[in-house]
């Protein structure tokens, strides 16, 4: 039984002439309780927009234009705002890329966590503070009770991201969506945050959706990978299969263009060209203009996702 199931999700921007420019063009995937799924793709692939649509956090002119997001038997795209507010932060929590702009600089860390706790639970101020301190401690911030009174500027970038994760887990959600949570951080801090997310998942049983442009990074902690390109899922499957036997040429190149710290040194494998621009998507496979394996139907007809539920690829000439 899936925890969250996304079916045919579409997100579009209202254009100037009343038309709609689609950025997410029919995304399907599901996540089981306690599972960790990585969504990998470049900027503009629609990975963040899809998750913002799930959280109903899209800002105009972007809006969900189709599909369903099933959570607890209800379609989150259809439920009322009051119900959605109860889900957000309590059942599904989200952590964003830039910890600096996700925190209110004028409020203490403790106040910001207790606000979330008291919005979802009938607890006293003292209890909320205890819950907040526990959450901070859980994410590895020492001397948590005292740090509650600190302001965001007193924290380093890595500690701010830890504080945001503490805020996200304070109400014990069933699903944590982390949108490029380490991109703004130094590599050593990035490694710590990835370790922390893996640990929380293991200890608290939280399901995780980890969005990143870095396949190597997500592969360290997820069970399954969903590869997106041009607003569509082009391949998904167990992480081992995606890493060891990718079938879509894009996945294959995405893996190959990142250099390694071992092995011979040579020119990098580059993907020529650039990702398609919004509103100028090819009629067929979005990757076809850059694909070295593209053949006759690729540019004109979008291939269907084929395969079993756990291992799918959308390509006319999979490898």
């Amino acid at each position, binding site marked *: 039984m899936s925890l969250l199931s996304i079916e045919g999700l579409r997100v579009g921007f209202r254009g100037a002439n009343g038309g709609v420019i689609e950025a997410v063009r029919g995304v399907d995937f599901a996540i089981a309780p306690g599972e960790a799924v990585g969504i990998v793709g470049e900027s503009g692939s629609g990975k963040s927009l899809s998750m913002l649509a799930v959280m109903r956090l899209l800002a105009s002119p972007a809006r969900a234009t189709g599909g369903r997001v099933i959570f607890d038997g209800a379609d989150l795209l259809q439920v009322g705002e009051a119900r959605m507010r109860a889900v957000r932060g309590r059942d599904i929590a989200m952590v964003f890329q830039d910890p600096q702009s996700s925190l209110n600089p004028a409020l203490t860390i403790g106040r910001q966590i207790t606000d979330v706790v008291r919005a979802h639970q009938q607890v006293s101020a003292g209890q909320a503070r205890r819950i907040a301190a526990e959450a901070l401690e859980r994410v590895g911030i020492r001397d948590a009770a005292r740090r509650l009174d600190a302001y965001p500027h007193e924290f*380093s970038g890595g500690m701010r991201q830890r504080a945001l994760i503490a805020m996200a887990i304070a109400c014990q959600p069933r699903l944590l969506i982390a949108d490029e949570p380490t991109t703004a951080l130094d*590599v*050593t801090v990035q490694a*710590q945050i990835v*370790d*922390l997310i893996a640990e929380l998942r293991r200890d608290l049983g939280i399901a995780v959706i980890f969005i990143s442009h870095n396949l*190597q990074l997500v592969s360290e902690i997820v069970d399954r990978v969903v590869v997106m390109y041009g607003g569509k899922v082009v391949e998904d499957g167990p992480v081992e299969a995606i890493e060891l036997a990718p079938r879509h040429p894009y996945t294959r*190149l*995405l893996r190959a263009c990142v250099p390694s710290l071992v092995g011979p040194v040579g020119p*990098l494998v580059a993907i020529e060209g650039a990702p398609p621009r919004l509103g100028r998507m090819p009629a067929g496979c979005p990757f076809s203009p850059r694909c070295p394996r593209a053949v006759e139907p690729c540019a004109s007809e979008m291939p269907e996702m084929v395969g079993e539920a756990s291992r799918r690829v959308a390509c006319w000439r999979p490898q």
Partner: protein
Amino acid sequence: MTGPLLSLRNVTKSFPQGGLVDRLLGRETRFVALDDVSLEIARGDVVGIVGESGSGKSTLANLAVGLARPSSGEVLLDGEPLSALMRDHGGPWRRRIQMVFQDSSSALNPRKTIGRCLTETLALRGVPRVERGQEALALLTLVGLGPEMAPRLPHELSGGQRQRVGLARALAMQPDLLIADEPVSSLDVSLQAQVINLLSRLTRELGLTLLFISHDLALVRTLCTRIIVMRKGEIVEQGACLDVLDQPTHPYTKLLIAAVPKGIAGRRSPGQPDAMRAAAATSQTRDEFHGAA
């Protein structure tokens, strides 16, 4: 000339810290961004400078290009002190060191076409007006862009294309030394590879001396012959790139290497975190770790 192209001799750069009140009361403290750094870069060297934010790598670049002056010590270009050369503001020394910046959108004037950006740069080098157009197109070709880019404005280009324009503009001056400060860190991985391959080709074909500043050890390994590892304003380790990365001696270099994502090879079974990372994770902030190291 046989001596080093660029040398830093005991260079320190510090900035005042604290508010105005502190300064008025004489309680000023200084943040040391670069601490007594000496290094030499020979002609044709392709040097990677790695380290985290606050390690002083960008300060080093700014000093080398003359955007900042050292608090003490000296920067020498071909044996001549940059401080003396800088008295001549638009002097020929400026042409010889060029820089490519991290953020390609703020590095280009949004209201000037790509062609104009290049021809103006060529004018600065003293290229006759009649030759500028032709040479601008040659530069675009050199960095893998077509002539159709010339009439476009920066916002019409992708990030990767803009970064190529930044590179073409730097090359327009026919520099001896090119400094690239995190030139690909804001690009998608598929575009990163394109720019790195381009830099690699240019260093070979033009015999460029390149100072490549990055936090990405794997990119440095691909591109550079030498590596300098910096931490908190000091050089902690340097040497031939492959030697240092394959057999690091300083614990900080080892930590940086351990932090590079390794895909499924880097999967840790529960309860057995990577040893180096665990060491880092037990400290709360970078500063605490560095303090303890």
